[in-house]
């Protein structure tokens, strides 16, 4: 009896333990993925009313001005994330890696802490900061530079994206800084000492020791930031009061997907947008990895 118990246990127990994950994965990941591919070939009014349109949803994306605007906004945000946020993160990390700075642990936590509160909280906080006339930012700018206090950060189409970038800068600079900090600490100190003996200055050290030393982490952070930027949704959605802002200035691809799928009820078009986004992000990530030489083998 005991032998039979052990035999059955050894044979079936692993399956029983992986079953919850497999069931959940099949139900909530694989099935929706396959279903969304199929849905992208239909115009739908909810899942019960569907008209097969072949590739028309994907063709319509090419001519849909709102989608173009969403792509443009998202790319702009992603560009700013990579080219403003990451250098700032790296700069902070280098600063806080320096033995000359006192209270480094405190600053590390302080810069990282905005990430702990979540996008919705940050969006609410910044929507108050950006209020015209009585908001903190306008008050401070007025105090410092005598600019008018009624700048509509979230009401002027030209200022929505800068406001969004500023907010995400506050939120993510510290988060990415942690990655860079870890990478910097892994760079061999002896290389710096040797380079100093050879007469290299700080800039050359940064260029020839620091950057190559943190390359793999930098690529990881760039790819992660790009993917995260293309998934932007909560921040503009909450900051702009559940809208895309004036003149769709805060419309992102994911927000447009949400509007089509869950406000208009066209799950088919939303699926087409989703898959286009997925392929777009994949393509950009591959290009980034190719350009950064991730796949090059060391000689």
């Amino acid at each position, binding site marked *: 009896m*005991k032998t039979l118990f052990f035999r059955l*246990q050894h044979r079936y*127990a692993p399956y029983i*333990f992986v079953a919850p994950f497999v069931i959940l994965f099949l139900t909530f990941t694989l099935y929706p993925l396959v279903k969304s591919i199929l849905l992208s070939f239909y*115009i739908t*009014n*909810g*899942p*019960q*009313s569907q*008209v097969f*349109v072949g590739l*028309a949803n994907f063709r*319509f994306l090419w*001519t*849909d*001005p*709102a989608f173009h605007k969403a792509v443009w906004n998202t790319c702009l945000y992603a560009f700013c994330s990579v080219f403003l946020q990451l250098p700032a993160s790296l700069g902070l990390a280098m600063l806080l890696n320096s033995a000359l700075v006192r209270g480094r642990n405190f600053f590390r936590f302080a810069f990282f802490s905005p990430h702990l509160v979540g996008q919705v909280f940050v969006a609410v906080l910044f929507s108050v900061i950006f*209020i*015209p*006339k*009585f*908001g903190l930012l306008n008050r401070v700018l007025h105090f410092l530079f005598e600019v*008018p*206090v*009624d700048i*509509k950060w*979230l*009401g*002027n*189409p*030209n200022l929505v994206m800068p406001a969004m970038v500023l907010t995400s800068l506050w939120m993510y600079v510290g988060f990415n800084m942690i990655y860079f900090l870890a990478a910097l600490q892994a760079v061999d100190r002896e290389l710096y000492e040797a380079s100093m003996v050879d007469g290299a200055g700080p800039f050359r050290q940064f260029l020839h020791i620091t950057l190559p030393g943190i390359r793999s982490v930098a690529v990881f952070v760039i790819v992660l930031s790009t993917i995260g930027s293309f998934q932007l949704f909560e921040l503009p959605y909450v900051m702009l009061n*559940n*809208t*895309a802002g*004036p*003149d*769709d200035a805060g419309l992102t691809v994911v927000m447009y997907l949400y509007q089509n799928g*869950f*406000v*208009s*009820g066209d799950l088919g078009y939303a699926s087409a947008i989703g898959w286009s986004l997925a392929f777009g992000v994949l393509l950009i990530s591959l290009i980034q990895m190719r350009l950064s030489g991730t796949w090059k083998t060391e000689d």
Partner: protein
Amino acid sequence: MINRFEDYFPFGKAPILILIITLLAGIFLAFNPVEKNTASLRLWTFARNHAVPYQKATPAFEAKHPGVRLDVQLVHGEAVTSRLRAAFWADLDVPDLVEVEISRAGSFFRGPVDQVGFIDLIPFLRASGMDDRIVKARLAPYTNRGRIFGLPHDVHPVMLAYRRDLFEEAGIDVESLESWEDFIREGQRLTRPGERYMIELSDNNPGHFEMFLFQRNGGYFDANGELIMDDEIALETLKFFIPLVAGPRRIGSDLGSGRVFTQAIETGYFLSFICPDWRSKLVETDIPRMAGKMALMPLPAVMPGGRRTSTWGGTMLGITSACADPEMAWEVAMHMYFDKEQLAERFRETNILPPFKDAWELPAFREPRSYWSNQSLGKLYAELAEQVPPQYTSPLIETAKTKMGGVISSCAAYYREHGEEGFDAFSRARLKEAGDEIRQYIRRNPY
């Protein structure tokens, strides 16, 4: 020798702990099932100031209909739309009655008319004789392809709320402000950009512009569902509206809603603002210090003798197709929307004018309100109610509004930079561009 725990269960202690917790949780849930909702009818609403009076009125309804249990549920404003849509899609947990906000209503009329999630109320309205006793224009937003899918909760006529104390100080006689021309003239005298504006008006949000558009009998869609947002009325309205919010002669600006708005009223940053009935209650609640200093006047007309109001906002009550007893659901609607005594009480609490005209004769609608300088709020709004313009809707109404917002902000930017030069052509082109985009979406609709 098999006697150690690891021999019987070689996967470690953590998995066995998980198993035990799962087992205990399962047993707990089995013995404590979620209480089954035994209500015979469920009503969802998104507004607390609707839900509370409905809940108060429920015992009377249940007493009138023995054996019927009504459950009024307050669902968050954003969630009610997505939950309702999901419920329709899944055909699961669909309420019997539901209140939907006017700008969201159109999106539920998408698809084949027989598959709309609400039943046609025309037979009920005719049988009860209510179709002649409510403000007809308010049925327009909930009418689609010849069917009426919603009962209007309100009329929402619009007036102009103003700082009576500051107007008097400035020597303005509101009786003389009959047309927008009169109003603008005074506005230009009093406005000091950055410090004080005659009126709260947005240069990017379509909400304020719409009221001017509706006042002129314009709109986004006509009664047949055809797009009219780029017609001549819209163009004329746009050319009239933009100089009010942009350029050197502007008299309006906006800061946003909530606390910043109340501060702007208190400090006299805005001297007046467009005030539908529902907003008058918000102001009473949010700026109690302004009691006695505020007053209401009809909207200035486009031309002397013209319409003195417009409309802003609204809610419909629909009976869902999933409702097992539509007759009883209609009884609920009658009880909540057409019981005069209840409506009077509700008006005192919300300032919202009901579309049921019989109720307007009740004393509650004629009481002077000290907050509004002893004006009779109900009487003022009721006098304008019949002039309220109809606003027709479409599943694409929200997209159309977004596009109009874009047109307004780009035209305002153009006007700030170039003034009148080329403004006519630019406005026309931007409106047409926005209209064509919507037509592109309409053409794509296979239903």
